[in-house]
């Protein structure tokens, strides 16, 4: 390995030992679609569960992403243990289904579960949960807040932290800002009151909204815009998780040459020949030079995007691309990395 700016841990300054987010009970993980929200949310739940803690990983988009990630059969709408963390901790999972959450709500607040089947028949449940997103969101975030209040009440079944695998950046502020969302539909009434209760948890220091991004132009732009929107709505921004980064392959000097097309191709050809390559060494050197130039362009773009993230001046956690994809082992690896960067 080389010693170059590229091998230095960009989060070095962030490597600390005390609790990273004191007082935070609800971790909301958002980010561009496909950037790794579900993966990072799971790794975060694992990291926070180290040393005997119990955390809950929640998902709300009805996609059984947690089951896929932990390679289990589809999970029912109940809290269930899905993994153990080093040091005896536990990660539990809860896929929240909006239909069930609505029936729950009717039961808890009105003792009306049986009305559910009639409401379902005429499409009222569909209306409330799929067509009108404001209502659906207040039910989903309401569930997260109920879990946080368990902590506050010191309930025996309370978790130490709740991690929510949330909708993507483009929808996150709207999703969390349920107050203004339902106001279009319900200006008064119990749903409205419920929304206010939810906001008192979400727009408070009990919550941190984290954003997952890639070192690419559009995901970073979405992150920048997302943070602005969250702040405008008074929602607490947590950290930025830069996911799927690739290792540094060339040193800064080598990159300069690659970019300028001034790599010593003859000498490279000779070295390649000495290393026993089977193809014509001159052609090998020329092709490697072209590949290096493309790589340099990519590194430049990543450097530029990294700078924009740095300018946000938020705690940043960089996670590598795991070459063979994500399985349980990889999740542990990511969780350990988060621990080493002070996540606990």
């Amino acid at each position, binding site marked *: 390995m080389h010693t170059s700016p590229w091998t230095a841990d960009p989060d070095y300054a962030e490597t600390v030992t005390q609790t990273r987010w004191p007082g935070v009970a609800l971790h909301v993980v958002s980010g561009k679609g496909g950037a790794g929200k579900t993966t990072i949310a799971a790794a975060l739940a694992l990291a926070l569960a180290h040393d005997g803690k119990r955390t809950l990983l929640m998902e709300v988009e009805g996609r059984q992403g947690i089951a896929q990630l932990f390679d289990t059969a589809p999970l029912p709408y109940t809290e269930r243990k899905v993994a153990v963390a080093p040091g005896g901790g536990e990660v539990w999972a809860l896929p929240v289904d909006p239909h069930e959450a609505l029936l729950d709500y009717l039961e808890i607040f009105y003792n009306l579960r049986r009305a559910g089947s009639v409401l379902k028949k005429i499409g009222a449940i569909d209306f409330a949960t799929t067509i009108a997103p404001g209502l659906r969101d207040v039910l989903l975030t309401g569930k997260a807040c109920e879990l946080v209040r368990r902590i506050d009440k010191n309930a025996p079944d309370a978790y130490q932290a709740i991690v929510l695998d949330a909708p993507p950046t483009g929808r996150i502020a709207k999703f969390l800002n349920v107050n203004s969302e339902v106001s279009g539909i319900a200006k008064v*009434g*119990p749903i409205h009151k419920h929304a206010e209760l939810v906001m008192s948890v979400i727009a408070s220091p009990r919550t941190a909204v984290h954003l997952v991004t890639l070192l690419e132009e559009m995901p970073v732009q979405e992150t920048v815009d997302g943070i602005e929107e969250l702040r405008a709505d008074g929602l607490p921004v947590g950290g930025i998780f830069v996911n799927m980064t690739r290792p540094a*392959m060339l040193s800064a000097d080598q990159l300069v040459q690659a970019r300028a097309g001034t790599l010593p191709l003859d000498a490279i050809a000779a070295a390649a020949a000495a*290393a026993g390559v089977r193809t014509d060494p001159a*052609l090998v050197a020329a092709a490697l030079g072209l590949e290096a130039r493309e790589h340099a362009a990519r590194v430049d773009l990543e450097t530029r995007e990294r700078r924009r993230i740095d300018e946000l001046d938020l705690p940043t956690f960089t996670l590598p691309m795991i070459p063979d994809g994500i399985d349980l082992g990889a999740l542990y690896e990511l969780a350990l990395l988060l621990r080493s960067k002070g996540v606990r």
Partner: protein
Amino acid sequence: MTVRGQLSVDAPPLRIDSILGDRSIRIIVCTGAGGVGKTTTAAAIALRAAEQGRRVCVLTIDPARRLAQAMGLTTLDNTPRAVEGITGAGSLDAMMLDMKRTFDEVVEAHSDPERAQAILANPFYQALSSSFAGTQEYMAMEKLGQLRTEADRDGTWDLIIVDTPPARNALDFLDAPARLGSFLDGRFIRVLTAPARGAGRGIGKIAVMGFGLFTGVLSKILGAQVLSDIGNFVAAIDTTFGGFRERADATYALLQDLGTSFVVVATPERDALREASYFVERLKADGMPLAGLVLNRVQVVTLTEMSGEEAIASADRLDDGDEIESLTAALLRLHAQRQQIASRQQHLAERFTAAHAGIPVTTVPALAEDVHDLQGLREVGQLLAEA
């Protein structure tokens, strides 16, 4: 030899230029999972078509900011505007969908000013037109229908290219409008508004038995005001235009027309290809014409004849202490990394083509930079055409 290698797919080539040259094709729909490059592909195909002499309108949805700027999409007026800098005899107009505005215009076009005002001011309408699931898809279809009518009437365009909304599920574009339409025309709404239209008419037994119960529950949860907003909305809209579902079905029929062609976009990743598979199967089931698959952001390898294993083995034989040798080793390892990505993509592409034999495919390499000017779009268009 150092031929720049991409995926070698066992599928017939997707020839974009012969589609663009076929004057009977008047609508091209670009679809796929979120973030795969639908908007970029739609814009690139539109530019290429225009520069080959067609009179094109491209309807984009949520384009990346700089791409929008490059196409002159800075005024958000929901109307196609000429894109500057096109060469050749054709023309290119571009627009960005404004879903609320499109809905407002539908309302305005179908009711007298007074009634339109009442609808636009209705809180339920405001929620419906700005945040309901499916509204964006519905309005994209609606806008497509409008553009097509305008093209037929005025001869403004001979080709309309449509981008699709960023849904996690590519099928939403096809299904969401009908779903929303059925809801708006459906039993729930009728029951809610029954008092306004004579209770019980066509509602059936459940309503008669349960009417009091569920309006009671709903007004408890939502507040009574919501029910009366919905009632007023439906009463106002009912007399202005026919069923929502009917409108959605009419545009859907346009998509089944032989003058329409679907281009499915995917990146060589598992999730994106899974969405592409669903979509391809659905098109077949509904008899909709598929042009083929664009595999976008494909890893390019220059030194195709050296495998990743050989590169690593050679690198390991070099001395890290020597400047040139360590440089050469680093370059070989970089090559191995590219080969590794390329072979994973190759494997995923093979799985797709095996499951969907005969579907034409073209590939577009992953460019080092994002695409945000006309020159970049031209390049992508060229790469698309080289199947």
